[in-house]
């Protein structure tokens, strides 16, 4: 649906993007992940034809963004970063403008307005002036204007930034439900969000793509064996000796003097049950035993810092 090929963008002499390529398939929800100033917004602005790239090209549903910008824009619903809105307008007046500017005829407009206000739960606030709405409501107005005209592609730039936890959950739910019948590209630097919402993740750092895959595959690709954290009541060193004899355990390292240790297990072996049995039989007070999963945070930090070291 969206194909980004070798994008390079310079702001004056500053390079914001270098050779960025990725694609988003029809119906996919893709998370565009990166630290601040990594080039996420720049990429999204280029895809939505807000500005042209220095080099490279963007195809949206087969249309070249630089050759047919109006066609591409009509296929995309875009929520810009920080949700800029015409604050002096009422919700319904603004959405009506969005509908009209997107080329909906008069008859379709009223119906479409009702539809998006229903989805974004704005109906009872439709006569409020946007400037007087709370941040969460404004975010919904932003999403509502993107949804108008039912574009197949939605591009959302940091859709949950600045919201309180309850609002964040709500917007995420909304995005999840939209993901069922839309192609969505959303940028974020909040990792759990991406993991919850997206089928696939594109990680960008310093203007370059560093990884593209599903969150689980990325985690699996991480180097190093799976780890288990074990905590016993007392006498950590002798407990660690006991554990190191369990088949499948590669190494044990003490994390503190209290008896907490990190156990590296060879891939494919699940030694947790055996460890627990031996510790209990050996008379240790087993307080905690959990496997430490590789999170998207780990992958992200790993990729981003690795990138820093090589460059």
């Amino acid at each position: 649906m969206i194909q980004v090929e070798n994008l390079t963008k310079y702001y004056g002499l500053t390079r914001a993007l270098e050779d960025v390529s990725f694609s988003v398939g029809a119906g996919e929800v893709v998370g565009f992940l990166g630290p601040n100033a990594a080039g996420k917004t720049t990429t999204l602005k280029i895809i939505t034809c807000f500005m042209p790239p220095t080099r490279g090209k963007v195809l949206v549903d087969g249309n070249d963004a630089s050759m047919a910008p109006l066609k591409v824009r009509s296929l995309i619903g875009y929520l810009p970063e920080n949700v800029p809105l015409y604050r002096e307008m009422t919700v319904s007046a603004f959405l009506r403008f969005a509908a009209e500017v997107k080329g909906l005829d008069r008859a379709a407009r009223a119906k479409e307005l009702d539809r998006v206000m229903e989805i974004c739960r704005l109906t009872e606030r439709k006569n409020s002036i946007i400037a007087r709405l709370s941040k969460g409501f404004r975010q919904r107005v932003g999403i509502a204007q993107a949804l108008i005209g039912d574009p197949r592609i939605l591009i959302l730039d940091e859709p949950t930034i600045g919201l309180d936890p309850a609002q964040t959950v709500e917007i995420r739910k909304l995005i999840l439900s939209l993901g069922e019948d839309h192609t969505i590209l959303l940028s974020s630097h909040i990792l759990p969000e991406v993991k919850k919402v997206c089928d696939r993740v594109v990680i960008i750092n310093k203007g370059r793509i560093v990884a593209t895959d599903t969150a689980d595959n990325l985690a699996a690709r991480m180097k190093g064996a799976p780890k288990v954290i074990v905590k016993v009541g007392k006498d950590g060193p002798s407990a660690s000796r006991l554990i190191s004899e369990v088949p499948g355990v590669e190494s044990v390292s003490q994390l503190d003097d209290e008896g907490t240790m990190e156990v590296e297990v060879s891939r494919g072996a699940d030694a947790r049950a055996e460890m627990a049995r031996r510790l209990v039989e050996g008379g240790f007070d087993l307080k905690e035993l959990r496997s430490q999963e590789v999170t998207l945070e780990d992958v992200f930090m790993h990729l981003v810092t690795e990138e820093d070291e090589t460059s």
Partner: protein
Amino acid sequence: MKGLWAIYKRECYSLFASPIFYVVCASFLVLAGYFFWSTVGYFHVVSFQVGRNPAYISQLNATEMVVRPFFVDLSIVLLLVCPFLTMRLMAEERRAGTVELLFTYPVGDKAIVLGKYLAALTLCCLMLLGTAPAMGLLFALTRLELMVVLSGYFGLMLLGGALLSLGIFTSALTENQIIAAVLAFGGGLMLWIIGWSEQLAGGTFGKVLGYLAITGHFENLAKGVLDSRDVAYYLILPLFFIFLTLRYMESRKWRG
């Protein structure tokens, strides 16, 4: 030009929603009222003095002595207030970030600029319409030449159109409304006074300066002389500034 009407309506909505228009309109009408009162007052004094001498009475002419100076006064007030009508047009979009919405909707740059320009022009015409009651009063009390009045209003509209196009250009240059207004006012004043150097420069250059000056063209229209050269001037000027605005917006996109 798809979307022009939508942009136009939205811009009118915002102009009416902001207090700027009402303040500008009020200042314009107060100044217009003052000028009307003083020109009519002057005409009144002169009529009394001349009234004793029947030979001169036939030469008293309200169109010449009230309408014409009144329109020239209005043109000066227009120079003063037009920058405030246009300063927010592009600058505010940039400051508030709504450019990102506007330029990612499926509308072309031309529709955006023209829609905004026409919205400002509509408001300017509404403002001019506010002086119509004064003219109505004159019509009721004396004999006026209707065509001169109409030509004067037509001239004010053209003049407003030219000043507003300059204003939309300066508004595109910056995200600061005050800078946009000051630049538009400075530019407008320059166009106003550039004709003063006609004699000094002399020759062809002097003639060019004379033609560039906004005042000479307006004075003809205020007299009721509808010359195609003057009308052409007031049509070319907006086209030129709208062209500049479009080119500037394009270059800005490339620079990022």
